[in-house]
């Protein structure tokens, strides 16, 4: 009797150990390809990084000394324009949800739409920006790409702004209102500054997300081998350049695609890390 109990106990213990070990192994395996990606990126791309690579314009395949200056500048212009369009309206919508709409039916509808929009594939947003901007203007343009990216960042910024502003204690609002400050000034001068770090975090996360997007730019910004600062012209961007180069039949373009990937991933990772550090500061302040 005692013996059988002991055997069962032993079996349960062994089973426990086997399964836990399996879980740990399964949990570690997916980390491998991710590290391989990072490792290979730097291994293959580091040799193409040089000052010329940053300062030169693309060269025809086979010609040495080609750079990615136009794509870097283009990425900053397109993403900057997208932020100019997307951020103010998103923050206002976030303010509406946390300060005015709250639990109303309309506010819930806004939240639901923002959440649904977050799941809309980026290629579909590219089609929409094509119909809204490229078709009326009659040509591809950086502006169309910015519209697509602005649409993509809106849901992210709206939801984080709302969440952060909701954390602002009501005492602050009441104190400000008691001093006779109108509600709109209370929101702008008390509530928003209190939540500013969190709002910035949301914006950075959104910018990091759109900076690496390729699909919405394919038929909007389109890409351009030449330098341009005009947002009404087709413009190159890092993700577009990586895509076009890697799908080309030229080996030196592949090489440059790896180099451009290092630049892009560095931008995206820096934005992400900055947002986490800020987010941690918010958590610390609470």
């Amino acid at each position, binding site marked *: 009797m005692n013996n059988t109990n002991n055997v069962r106990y032993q079996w349960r213990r062994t*089973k*426990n150990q086997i*399964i836990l070990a*399996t879980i*740990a*192994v399964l*949990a570690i395996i*997916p*980390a491998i*390809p*991710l590290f*391989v*990606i990072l490792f*290979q*990126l730097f291994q293959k791309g580091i040799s193409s990084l040089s000052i010329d690579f940053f300062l030169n314009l693309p060269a025809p395949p086979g010609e040495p000394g080609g750079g990615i200056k136009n794509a870097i500048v283009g990425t900053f212009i397109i993403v900057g324009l997208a932020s100019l369009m997307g951020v103010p309206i*998103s923050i*206002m*919508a976030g*303010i509406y*949800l946390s300060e*005015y*709409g709250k639990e109303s039916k309309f506010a819930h509808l*806004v939240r*639901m*739409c923002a959440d649904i929009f977050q*799941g*809309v*594939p*980026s*290629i*579909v*947003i590219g*089609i*929409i920006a094509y*119909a*809204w901007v490229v078709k009326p203007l009659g040509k591809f343009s950086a502006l169309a790409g910015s519209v697509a990216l602005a*649409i993509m960042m*809106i849901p992210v910024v709206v939801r984080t702004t709302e969440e952060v502003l909701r954390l602002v204690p009501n005492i602050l609002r009441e104190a400000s209102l008691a001093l006779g400050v*109108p*509600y*709109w000034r209370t929101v702008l001068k008390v509530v928003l500054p209190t939540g500013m770090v969190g709002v910035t975090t949301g914006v950075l996360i959104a910018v990091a*997300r759109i*900076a*690496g997007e*390729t*699909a919405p730019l*394919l038929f909007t910004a*389109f890409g351009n081998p030449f330098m341009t600062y005009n947002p009404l012209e087709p413009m190159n961007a890092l*993700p577009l350049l*990586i*895509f076009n180069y*890697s799908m080309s039949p030229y080996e030196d373009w*592949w090489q440059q695609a*790896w180099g451009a*990937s290092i630049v892009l*991933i560095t931008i*995206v*990772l820096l934005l*992400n*890390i900055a947002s986490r550090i800020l987010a941690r500061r918010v958590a610390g302040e609470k």
Partner: protein
Amino acid sequence: MNDKKLSLPSKIWDDVFRYLAFGSGLVVILLIVASLITLIIQSWPAIKHYGLSFIWSTDWDPLAEKYGALPFIVGTLLTSFLALIIATPFALAGAIFLGELAPKKIAEPISFIMELLAGIPSVIYGLWALFFLVPIIRAFQMKIGAPPYGLGIFTASLVLAIMILPYALSVARDVIKLCPNDLKEAAYGLGATRWETIRGVILPYAKSGIVAGIVLALGRALGETMAVTMVIGNSSTLPSSIWDLGNTMASVIANEFNEAQGLHLAVLVEIGLLLFIITVIVNLIARIFIIKTRV
């Protein structure tokens, strides 16, 4: 004296600001409505011309103006579900490991790195897959006697699996973390082993959250464009095995949109419309599961 001057404008500003805020909220709703209407208008010639047979037809020949979306619908579903099947066991194990087993000191940095890696742009996954994964798969296909394309449905699914894993994992991990300590302690108090506690208490508690994470990951897989476009081989025939070349709804749009005109363009927008509707439904389902976890 000053009061009268101030009170009136400030009331107006209050209203102006409120309407601005309300208007911005309205914009979010209008964006979705306007997107849907835009897609329907732009694809109307195709909807009118081909009707429902568009979904079931397998012919895709832009020169002959024959358009059937079935190869792409099959391609999308096949790659997405294959990716889910590959990713789910790892995501679940990872979620249990990071949410329950690993001590905080290990779990936190790993979670941090994982979230950073989730931010890698998909075009970079595509680049890596094209030059690293494709040759490996090709060698494997030669060994088992499949056509050695290297590219194809299976390769695309594998890249997708790697890409969606962090999403499924982090949602599941967060819910597993939420499991109250007294429930776990009750199980331990009854003499349960750690695994028995996980299986009997934590997993049932976190069930809807885990499902929500998987469905969210499915939503991402369905709409993922770049990495898939780069490795799926872009063939518009109906795939007959997972080693075949193929195309997904997203990849065919990415490949053909810029060269398309007239009816061809409308057909591609209709595929976009289908994709839009499918992903909205999938995300709504995920939301239902997320709401369930909160109750």
